């Protein structure tokens, strides 16, 4: 889908990740950095503004870190989805139905044969 100009580039997450506090201290371990990149990509696809995306990613990582022996990517994604919540969107691509009938017409492709059957054979 179309990208707006206020979204993050995919690799911008790496630079900002260096300064983010995470579960293992001020610098993220490789696993948590990967998780953060995944979160930032997800938020970029949702066209979340950069500042808001940073905040959400940091919060998701913080919450994921509270889990016991978490898998960083899974836990962070779960936490992010919790934070975002399920937005109830209703998009209708079609108008309400207003049904009518359209039946195939019957055609006699051999009217001479029908005529023959109807008038000549019947007389016999």
């Amino acid at each position: 889908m179309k990208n707006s100009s206020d979204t993050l580039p995919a690799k911008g997450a790496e630079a900002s990740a260096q300064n983010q506090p995470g579960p293992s201290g001020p610098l993220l371990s490789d696993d948590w950095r990967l998780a953060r990149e995944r979160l930032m990509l997800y938020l970029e696809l949702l066209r979340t503004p950069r500042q808001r995306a940073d905040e959400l990613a940091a919060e998701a990582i913080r919450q994921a870190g509270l889990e016991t022996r978490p898998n960083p990517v899974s836990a962070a994604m779960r936490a992010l989805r919790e934070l975002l919540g399920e937005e109830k969107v209703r998009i209708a691509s079609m108008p309400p139905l207003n049904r009518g009938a359209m039946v195939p017409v019957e055609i006699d492709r051999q009217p001479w044969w029908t005529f023959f059957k109807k008038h000549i054979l019947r007389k016999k």
Partner: protein
Amino acid sequence: MNNVSKQPWEKTARRRRLLMIALIFFTTLIASSYMADVLPHKGATPLELTIVIVFAALFAWISIGFWESLSGLYVLLRRYDRFTITRTVAGQELEIAPEARTAILVPVCNEDMARVCAGLKATYKSLEATGRLDCFDFFILSDTGNPDLWVAEEIAWYETCKELTAFDRVFYRHRRVNIKRKSGNIADFCRRWGRNYRYMIVFDADSVMAGTSLVRMAQMMEQNPRVGILQTSPLAANKESLIARVQQFSNHVYGPMFVAGLHFTQLGDSHFWGHNAIIRIAPFMEHCGLPQLPGKPPLGGEIMSHDFVEAAFMRKAGYEVWLAYDLGGSYEEVPPTLLEELKRDRRWCQGNMQHMRLLFAEGLFPAHRALFLHGAMAYVSALLWFLFLSLSTAEAIYEVVREPVYFPAGRSLFPQWPVWHPLWALTLLATTAIILFLPKLLSVLVILIKGRARQFGGAAGLLASVAVEVIFSTLFAPIRMLFHSKFVFVTLLGQQVGWGGQQRSDLGTTWGEALRFHWFGTAVAFVWAAVLYLVNRSFFWWNTPIFIPLLLSIPLSVWSSRAGMGRAFRRMSLFVIPEEIAMPPELEFLNSDLEQQQARRVVLPLPDEAGFARAVVDPQVNRLHRCLLRTGRKVAPSIAARRRELQDKALAMGPGSLSVKEKKELLYDSQCMEELHRRVWEAAGQVSAAQWGLASG
């Protein structure tokens, strides 16, 4: 409407058709008797008699085009035509009654949605500019079976609606089962929403129309309640490959005179070409539901070329079918390569041949029976031409190898000399050339008289283009003839063709593709030419215009498909069309929109054709897709288990591991798609994530 009084145009049409039949008959009679005279035995042997009969059928066929063009010339040069339908709304304001609502239908099947939506947006904007947008709705009616393209359609529809702020005016429907193909797609629309509208304007995937033309069409239907279908004459534009530019040029230069000629003889019994036409929905729903033909495809089963049949049924129901030959602002695109054109012709050939089974159907008007015959002859004529050439070759060989009989049995004063008069043959050839090429020159004359030469790059450019076009059409005619003959032959043998999407972009033909398609024609021409060269050299020279193009068919097919070649001819001011000199706003919008779409940045490193993967990975696309699915359906535990297995497979081996059927099965299940989306994003393995475009930098 079945029992209606005769209209004044019907009497005129009858007179004109009788005149046309008489002209065709006498021209053919004279030419055929001349042909018999040219032959060594004056048509007295069975072989020569067959040659004369086949020649007569072919000459009658080309005479139809000739006389139709001449009547078109008469219509165009005469300042007043009392039967032209556009006259009924001339000078009116662009007003339509609010209840005369019109649906613009864009049926698609595995199409490039960037192009479809660009065309739709161009039409929408043009309609918006007329101030009458409120009377129109747009429907993209998808029959797409490719799951990746299905998702691409949903994305394209959503983006289009967002861009135009038109969620309440531009609709999208995807059909699961493609019963009766395009005609079934339109019928499905009629059953669901047809009652909401008085008219529908059917588009092709590459159609674009000006807003004023759309409003005028609705006005003409309002003004003429007897009209059931009103067809416009679409102008070919917007392509750059050489063969497409040649076709566009022909369409612009020769087309207007030809369609005016069609109008002259058909009047209210006209064609419906399936797109760029407006249809009165209520009678269409009542009288134009297509039946299945008995038997198996290709000649039985679903009616493939539905348009001619629908026009015949509409007319049978008492409604008229008119051709608005002088209404502008209606555009379409031509196939960009010879191979694409031939693929399309194969489908049309099968469809038109099927019409022959309806030739004697009860209640149809004679004019529409003639149209069925005309449509079939468009392809059968190629087989007849091939037959004519084969018989002529047989005659030429036979004359060489047989012992001449100067003194046949019976009494005779003089010996019999089998004489062949080359001068007579040249005269016959010249007559045929006049029948074929005079309409082209007359079309140029009309353009020059009307002062429109500048729209074609000036008088010199126009004349040079026509000269080069004649060379091109002469070169391509034998190639098309051979393919069309094959299509007719295999259709009669019972082979069916697919009805998939078309390649509409100027991608060109590769040498490999050309070799695969044209090797047979090249080989046939080589053997044919070699035999004639060895046996009858004078006849060989007569046939070089057939052999040479066939021998060159591979390079001709490749070079003519190239956009670079088309642009080179444009730089030489050849094949220029008015839309290239002053581009209409609709086409300008279309092109700039396509450029903008290409320039858009992509976040996910997934190819454009990876629609399924996009629907799984992209949270917005995933949500959109799930929103558009039917909801609340529970599936049997066995089906649910199978779908879980498919999810596991997709997750472990990536989207490429799934077949089309498996992708579709997952795409139809909202819950599965949601779960797969979650599992892909939570996948920790780098390899697995990379398969879905989530590779870490």
